[in-house]
């Protein structure tokens, strides 16, 4: 139920009081309301839940923490090969 999927904002336009974006999920496109993430811009990744973006993905944070995971994995492999 709390499933939220990351997608990339391709374009956004104002419709009445809302801002509605075209968001790409792999090969699928959907209309997504940006009302809850007013700062999101085309090119940003957002997490989408029941038709609303609920957060903007922090790309720098994501890259930094994922790099740490990669380093841990490489250190693990080296330790195994050295053993």
């Amino acid at each position, binding site marked *: 139920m709390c499933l939220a999927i990351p997608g990339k904002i391709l374009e956004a336009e104002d419709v009445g009081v809302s801002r509605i974006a075209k968001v790409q999920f792999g090969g699928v496109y959907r209309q997504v309301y940006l*009302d809850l993430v007013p700062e999101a811009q085309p090119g940003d990744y957002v997490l989408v839940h029941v038709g609303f973006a609920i957060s903007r993905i922090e790309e720098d944070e994501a890259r930094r923490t994922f790099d740490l995971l990669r380093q841990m994995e490489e250190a693990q*492999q080296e330790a195994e090969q050295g053993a």
Partner: protein
Amino acid sequence: MKYLDEYRDVHIARALSARIRARAAHPWVLMEICGGQTHTIMRYGLEELLPAEVELVHGPGCPVCVAPLEIIDTAIEIASRPGVIFVSYGDMLRVPGSDSDLFRVKAAGGDVRIVYSPMDAVKIAQDNPDRQVVFFGVGFETTAPANAMAVWHARRAGVGNFSMLASHVLVPPAIRMILRSPVNRVQGFIAPGHVCSVMGFQEYEALAEEFRVPIVVGGFEPVDVLEAIAMLVDQLEQGEARVENQYVRSVTRTGNTAAQKLMAEVFEVADRPWRGIGPIPASGYRLREEYAAFDAERVFGVSDKHVAEPAECISAQVLQGLKKPVDCGVFGTGCTPERPMGAPMVSSEGVCAAYYAYRRHDGV
């Protein structure tokens, strides 16, 4: 897909497994709250990657499962009325009330429709001005802002034939209820990453401090869940009890303030009954008085029912991490996903349904 595939990397998962094995020196009982995380644990067999010291128990974080019998019966009653279009997320239709479900209402000729977004329900109301359109607003804090937005839009656009049957629940009061139990076994929690994307994690800092329990905000892919477990084990082995954030790509300490502001405008905190558990004080949202005209319980004059739950079902203990689904006498026999008896068998994210789907060949 970016931000999904890399968090399913088997090499990183194995390295995290090795890290947990190396650090876990004592037995620890950890609970993931969210049904989405339970599903990931079962689907990817993550328990097989953990040492014997680390036991996972599964929490009450499935809003479909914990929606009380009373509200399902109310939904069925409203959906059965002539002239009503009853609109819902798909997973609510199979949920059994006392003696029926919404699918049967639909089969009997009721106008029950499934939507992806609550805004679709507002659109249906605008397209059918001579009908009453009722949206079944179910969810945790992740879904509450979207449901609130639908009501807010309907009021602003003067859509007078739209109302919401609200069944919103909150995660921190459920954690508090589990920790206050004299028979609690849980020593560390994985907090739900999408709930915290909306709410931030300040509420969880108060819980960590009050109960001296480590809490790690975690994501939903296998690498996310394993990293959250590794962080919890590190804290427990070092005698620490802090809130840490594993899901930094989406969660900040303060969360989504635009969403919180909207929820405060439309909802107020209320006591709520949880299916399988019972009433928990201040554990949900109801519509504010200013939005009474959009509150289906008031529009249709239905509320305050009380319905007893099946005695054979042990879901209260399962949802508090005291028992496993396989400890239940009716698991897989009197209670199956096709004919669920208790809350955790109801939705595919419920822990009993997840056990049934992924472990039923284990001789259980």
